[in-house]
């Protein structure tokens, strides 16, 4: 060894550590993958939000981002492909005092799970949906996804993508989300702030995070490694808070509009449920409480 590598001082603690299942680290993500970066932001947002961590649950689907639940030291659920949102819906409805975070990828949330996303947004279900958008199906080897931009090469689009991609933030707004933001993994401070903000916001909240997949997306498209991608984000991102989401579509190498686009108040699912039932049933309505069938 030509140089001496020093380990951390015994009394110093990484701020992300209390939020991780440390015995499961190192994680499975590739060098230069951005998912871990988003987890740092999430940990710091939890820290700042001062939430009771016993009352925070995290639900993931399948895929690289689907593994976040397994690393988070919270009540955590790694569900089936595409079904994180409906699972989270049941969890929230059975125990309304939980803060339920859905943490999953673009393919999981918008292709196989797309229908659930729009319906949960329509209901304004009180879920915080964090989507790490690496623009590809990474776990399975780099196939075209619902958010893969035009002209990109993937294993299932070897001659280039020609299907139009979803503009996720526009979709979220149109479906009824109360809060919509987009950042890249370069924007760690802003991302952590957005995550903290949604912890305090009621209703369906959506944060899209554009994130590198150097192994399967950037490499195949000659866009360099993870670090090159971060520099690219820095170069092409433009913060435009409040920008019309219809103008925020992504292209392979063009501008990435980031910022908070939507922050509005709509009645949440429980408010609507309780209002309707009270109007119709009056005193006969029994407001659902957190269930515990061990002592019911």
């Amino acid at each position, binding site marked *: 060894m030509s140089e001496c590598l020093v380990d951390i001082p015994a009394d110093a603690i990484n701020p992300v550590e209390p939020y991780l299942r440390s015995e*499961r680290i190192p994680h499975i993500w590739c060098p230069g993958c951005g998912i871990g970066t988003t987890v740092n932001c999430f940990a710091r947002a939890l820290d700042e939000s001062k939430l009771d961590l016993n009352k925070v649950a995290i639900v993931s689907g399948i895929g690289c981002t689907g593994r976040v639940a*397994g690393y988070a030291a919270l*009540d955590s*659920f790694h569900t089936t492909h595409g079904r994180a949102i*409906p699972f989270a819906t*049941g969890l929230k409805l*059975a125990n309304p005092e939980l803060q339920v975070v859905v943490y999953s990828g673009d393919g999981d949330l918008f292709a196989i799970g797309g*229908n659930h996303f729009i319906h949960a947004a329509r209901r304004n279900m009180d879920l915080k949906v964090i989507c790490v958008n690496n623009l590809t199906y990474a776990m399975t080897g780099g196939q075209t996804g619902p958010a893969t931009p035009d002209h990109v090469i993937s294993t299932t689009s070897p001659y280039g993508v020609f299907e139009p991609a979803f503009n996720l933030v526009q979709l979220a707004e149109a479906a009824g989300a109360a809060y919509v933001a987009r950042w890249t993994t370069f924007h760690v401070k802003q991302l952590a702030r957005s995550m903290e903000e949604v912890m305090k916001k009621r209703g369906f909240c959506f944060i899209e995070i554009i994130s590198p997949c150097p192994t399967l997306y950037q490499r195949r498209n000659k866009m360099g490694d993870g670090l090159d991608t971060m520099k690219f984000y820095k170069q092409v991102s433009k913060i435009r808070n409040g920008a019309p989401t219809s103008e925020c579509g992504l292209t392979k190498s063009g501008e990435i509009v980031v910022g908070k686009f939507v922050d509005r108040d709509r009645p949440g699912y429980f408010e609507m449920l309780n209002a309707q039932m009270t109007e119709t049933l009056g005193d006969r309505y029994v407001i659902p409480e957190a269930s515990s069938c061990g002592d019911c």
Partner: protein
Amino acid sequence: MHADPRGVLTGVHFLDGDHACCEGTLAAGARFAAGYPITPSTEVVERFAWRIPTVGGVFIQMEDELAASITMQGAVWGGAKAFTVTSGPGFSLMMEHIGYAAVTETPCVFVNVQRGGPSTGLPTLPAQADMMQAKWGSHGDYGIIALCPNSPQECFDLTITGFNLAEEFRVPVMLMLDECVGHMTEKVVIPEPDQIEITPRRYTKKTPEEFRLFEPREDKVPDMVKAGDGYHFHVTGLTHDERGYPSMTVDTQDKMVNRLQDKLKPFTNGRAIFEAADLEDAEVVVVSYGITSRVAQRAIEMARAKGIKVGKFRLITAWPFPEQHIRDIAAKVKALVVPELNLGQMVREVERSAGGAAKVIGVPHAGGTVHNPEVILKAIEEAVR
């Protein structure tokens, strides 16, 4: 533990099987249902949607059956007793989540009011052709329990039994109704709450430090937890170790998959639920379940009137299959006659269990209506010859 009185509609009612099933869920303590409309099962959740706001709980109509069958499981891990209801194509869509419930050991109930298939098939007409699907429909090896009521009263009673078994063994329980039983209206007696036994969820008494999510007790079933109680547990559909962490090794797979089946062994024969009559002198036994058992009853009576020594064995638990009971009967009789509304499903289990000791004669029917009892009678007559 007795039933929570808030959910129990004590009295004598005139209900169809679907509605009786709904009353069963409420009496069993279910306070959450997620569903998606599909004939002929929708009445179960229609009634639940009508009843639950004054009992205290949630019904949510989801965007499809995939959602309904996993929303239910989210609710279970949130602390509720929960179920979903479907039929035919909807049951096919739920298959992945039967596997998820099995591997995550999520106690929950799937109600399947069977209709004719395949595909859209016969939406308003009966069949019993989902029996193998209930057992084998999701990929991989796992265990489930399936119960087959043959009357609205049993739709009520067995729904409660189903919820109780789900809690005891931490498996998904299938209530395998059929269109006839679901839509037939009969007297249903709902007892007083203190006459209804309820199995409470067995939450762990261990501290979060000691607790391991899938560490089995002696009965091979692990204790339950729910989100929000400070355990910071992890649930995954991946092959997992006793901590609940993914562990994709041959050893972990072997241990996990075997336990998922083995934990049901005490239930398989010793506690199988069935109805038997006239087995003592029988030369032929009719093995049936669900609506077909009521048609078979007519055929049995006709045969007895002709002096044929015929007995009856009605499967109430279809899965795990009570193979020892069938084996014992097969050792004493000439033949087993198995009518069912499909082209031959449970008959294969009967054949397998009989192991050649007795002739096994299937009486298949493609569904859409029930058998003509004469057809079953004819099979009985041929069997004794």
